[in-house]
């Protein structure tokens, strides 16, 4: 029992620390990447290649003067950023980072919690994540904040539908398990879920962009119309928490996409490679390799998020709603219907 508690605590702490570290360095990479795409340097002064920039930014956020508007609802105003970052980190508990390690006959899963309702848990955590934005926007008592909050939550509710339905299609073709670890394990045979669920992945990717409030769907913080959106009134580290949570969201959804559609810690000819290297399945070395593979995939997805942001212009609000309700929702339903028919002919669904 003690061993179990210690090992789970270590993994939980590691996931927490990695989420925060990646979120911090995503801000650096976002600027570097934007610089690359726009033919300029990006941050270059703090440390080599500007690598100390996130620390400098964090320090700046911490020591800035903190302003809480007099007319705001003080308790909720302070609560909102914390709530937002908690829900952002919570989704990370599901991700199976590496193949299980077997030590003395005991199997240790490299995952904080393997829920048998993992996919639904993921959807409910993302839908509860709206509260941080809504409460923050409302408690600021500022019309721009309120408008930004309402936009953000309307957008998240709308895109959750298409996201959920594309996930149902994924679950049907991936063997019917709702557990994240099972979905990743089922892709061991070599074919990742991206092959049978290509359209599902496209829909899921667009929805993930909208759910994380990233460009081209970042209407919640559209500077030209809404000043700063829902965090207009926030300053110092509370603003920092909001920005941080957005990067954590991006990290988690990248990891989810890499795990659901691109095989997670599996890679082509994994077993052959392990055999050639003389590594036994279940050893620590295999786990480390698997983790590195998964992490690389996640980082590639984070870069794709940034690539999209610095390439596409922002949508108009009615275009956003039309895309969500009139294009993505019917397409995801069509994808679901086709998946069901195909799976019936393959004999995976029986009555």
């Amino acid at each position, binding site marked *: 029992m003690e061993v179990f508690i210690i090992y789970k605590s270590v993994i939980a702490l590691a996931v927490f620390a990695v989420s925060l570290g990646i979120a911090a360095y995503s801000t650096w990479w976002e600027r570097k990447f934007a610089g690359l795409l726009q033919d300029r340097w990006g941050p270059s002064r703090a440390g080599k290649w500007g690598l100390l920039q996130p620390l400098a930014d964090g320090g700046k956020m911490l020591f800035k003067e903190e302003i809480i508007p007099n007319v705001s609802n003080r308790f909720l105003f302070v609560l909102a950023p914390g709530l937002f970052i908690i829900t952002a980190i919570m989704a990370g508990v599901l991700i199976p980072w590496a193949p299980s390690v077997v030590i003395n006959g005991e199997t240790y899963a490299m995952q904080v919690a393997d829920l048998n*309702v993992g996919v639904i848990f993921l*959807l409910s955590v993302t839908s509860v994540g709206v509260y941080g934005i*809504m409460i923050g926007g409302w408690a600021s008592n500022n019309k721009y904040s309120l408008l930004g909050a309402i936009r953000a939550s309307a957008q998240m509710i709308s895109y959750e539908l298409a996201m959920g339905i594309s996930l149902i299609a994924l679950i049907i073709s991936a063997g019917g398990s*709702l557990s994240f670890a099972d979905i990743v394990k089922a892709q061991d045979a070599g074919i990742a879920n991206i092959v049978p669920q290509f359209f599902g992945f496209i829909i899921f990717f667009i929805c993930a962009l909208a759910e994380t409030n990233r460009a081209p769907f970042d209407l919640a913080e559209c500077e030209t119309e809404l000043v700063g959106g829902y965090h207009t009134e926030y300053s110092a580290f509370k603003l920092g928490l909001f920005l941080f949570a957005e990067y954590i969201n991006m990290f988690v959804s990248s990891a989810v996409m890499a795990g659901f559609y691109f095989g997670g810690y599996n890679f082509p000819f994994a077993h052959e490679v392990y055999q050639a290297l003389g590594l036994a399945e279940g050893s620590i070395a295999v786990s480390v390799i698997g983790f590195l593979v998964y992490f690389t995939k996640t980082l590639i997805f984070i870069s794709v998020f940034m690539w999209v942001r610095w390439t596409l212009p922002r949508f108009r609000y009615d275009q956003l709603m039309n895309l969500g309700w009139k294009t993505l929702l019917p397409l995801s339903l069509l994808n679901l219907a086709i998946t069901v028919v195909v799976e019936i002919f393959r004999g995976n669904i029986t009555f």
Partner: protein
Amino acid sequence: MLGYTITQWLFGILAFMAIMFGLMVVFSRNPVNSVLYLVLTFFCIAGHYLLLNAQFLAVVHIAVYAGAIMVLFLFVIMLMNLNQDSEPQRTMISKVIAGVIGGLLLLVVVGALRGSEQLAITRYGHSEIGLVRNLGRVLFDEYLFPFEIVSVLLLAALVGAIMIGKKEDRPLAESNQE
């Protein structure tokens, strides 16, 4: 611990919190606070489902009630900008009427629950009764007909909501011409 198991402790704490937050929903003056307390109440109820081994129900409860329905509530309240200042003053007579009706409702509830302590509680099933696999098997096998009826009912409600929410084209076009 004091002769109770951990499950009993959890049940007690969750029940206390659920009732507390439920009371706060009614007593808070600010509608937004009411909604937020209601969300907390739903979380407590989801905890009760977990204690009953119904993981699927618990997660769906959070996704649907806390994640979707209450967000819409919050949405409407924020858009209407209801707060303490705009709350209408209630007259004495409406308070009396509300008190009488609430009291009668309490009487009905107490009357309905009378004698329920003599009912035998049957513990059936096993710890995996709430898994999606078992739930789906029961739902789509034994209770398929009620399930289909409910889905038709929901579809009817959906179509009705769209019909009500739909813009009426002709009068709007006429009013634009004027």
